[in-house]
């Protein structure tokens, strides 16, 4: 089945701008905020957020980092091959900071659990909040909820959401894929129609 576009390029960029304004609303001059992207796909969003925050505020984001969660995952030995690690770059002290963890798609919540675990190995932040571009509601396997959300999607189990970026995939868009053509749901059609800006 042909994938449905959840967010096209312009809608995606508006969403990122909105998320940045929400961050500024909550964190003021961003002085104590730390923006941390989860490897491998969350960092692409985090880099965009950083760019956009700098465009809006006219100042560099004081604390920006990228965090690899590979060795904290709970699916080691549950999959065919071990996950390959990516780079971690966290060169500031977490103590007292208000961390915003960034990932592209929130689904089962397990990556975020691993991300929290990995994050706390670096110190004790004042608070940790979660920012995701896409929240796949009703599919959580752990009690984890996002604080900043780009778009909610009600999707069923065999559907998949992919986020594509200009830098890595050639264009900006968010797609909803449905494997197997037997059960198309009302939600993917509805989600698609409102997003083609």
């Amino acid at each position: 089945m042909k994938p449905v576009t959840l967010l096209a390029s312009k809608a995606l960029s508006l969403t990122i701008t909105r998320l940045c304004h929400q961050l500024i609303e909550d964190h003021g001059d961003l002085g104590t905020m730390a923006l941390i992207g989860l490897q491998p796909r969350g960092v692409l969003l985090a880099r965009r957020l950083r760019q956009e925050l700098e465009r809006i505020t006219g100042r560099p984001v004081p604390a920006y980092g990228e965090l690899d969660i590979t060795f904290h995952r709970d699916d080691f030995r549950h999959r065919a091959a071990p996950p390959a690690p990516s780079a971690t770059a966290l060169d500031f002290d977490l103590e007292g900071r208000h961390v915003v963890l960034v990932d592209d798609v929130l689904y089962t919540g397990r990556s975020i659990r691993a991300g929290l675990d990995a994050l706390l190995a670096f110190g004790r932040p004042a608070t940790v909040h979660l920012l995701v571009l896409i929240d796949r509601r009703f599919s959580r396997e752990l009690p984890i909820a996002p604080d900043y959300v780009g778009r909610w999607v009600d999707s069923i189990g065999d559907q998949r959401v992919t986020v594509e970026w200009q830098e890595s995939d050639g264009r900006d868009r968010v797609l909803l894929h449905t494997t197997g053509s037997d059960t198309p749901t009302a939600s993917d059609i509805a989600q698609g129609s409102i997003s083609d800006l």
Partner: protein
Amino acid sequence: MSPSPRTDALASDQLSVEHLLGIKDLIPADIDLIFRTADGFKEVLGRPIKKVPSLRDITIANLFFESSTRTRVSFELAEKRLSADVVNFSSSGSSVSKGETLIDTVNNILAMKVDMVVMRHPDPGAAVFLSRHVGARIVNAGDGTHEHPTQALLDAYSIREKLGKVKGVRVLIAGDILHSRVALSNIFCLQKLGAEVMLCGPSTLMPKHIEALGVKVERDLDKALRWCDVANMLRIQLERQGGDGIANFPSLREYAMVYGLDLARYKRIGKDVVIMHPGPINRGVEVSSEVADHANSIILDQVQNGVAVRMAVLYLLAARIPRNAV
């Protein structure tokens, strides 16, 4: 539909072997995978909390039938930093001295549900033998004069870290080649990664027909040092000398004069050769203190990288252990 990059793209990222018995069995892609994984662990070791939960359901037995400090501590730290459960066993005071066979010893330990065995043994081939007879993953931590694969991996990893590459690098391995499992594993590892290898040492400590492995052999240490980018100065294995009742060299003093690297000889090379040593150093024999502590020496980096490389090996081997059906 394109596969999700988060999972499917990594599907080929696993080792081609179930045990790490020697470098000889590895393909270059394995070594590359170990190095990339070790990069991740090296970063973990720089964190305030240097521990990850990956192997929390794995139990590892360290069986050391031959004395070792550095390798045993390095393995044990690697295992603990991966959150594995660890049991240590050394041959002194064990039932080995009461006549139990190797297979019986290990099977008794495995009966207590051990998943992996890290073994050092004085007999060449002990690790291969064990892998054929017991149902655990074996990591060879040195088998007699045969192989010491994790040492070779950490040596090559340290060269890669210092020089940015291994391919095309000229590596001199000098000293007691005859008794060295480090030399053999290093030759295999460096050649698989595309480095050039030269051996240098007294002819009594040079195995016959070693050229058949495709290495250069040079008797003159000064010439060899001028050729190389990296000099790995092996330890004279005093405990293995003269097993046949004949000394391999007249005296340590004479060995140090002809095949030892002191500061005067190092300065004569006229370029920044990287100094390596697998430890433990006999200071004043194969290298002088000034050279061992020189700015171009990466001896302590080797030790530090050893933990990250061993974590990578254990992690990648553990990934291939099937999970027990509950």
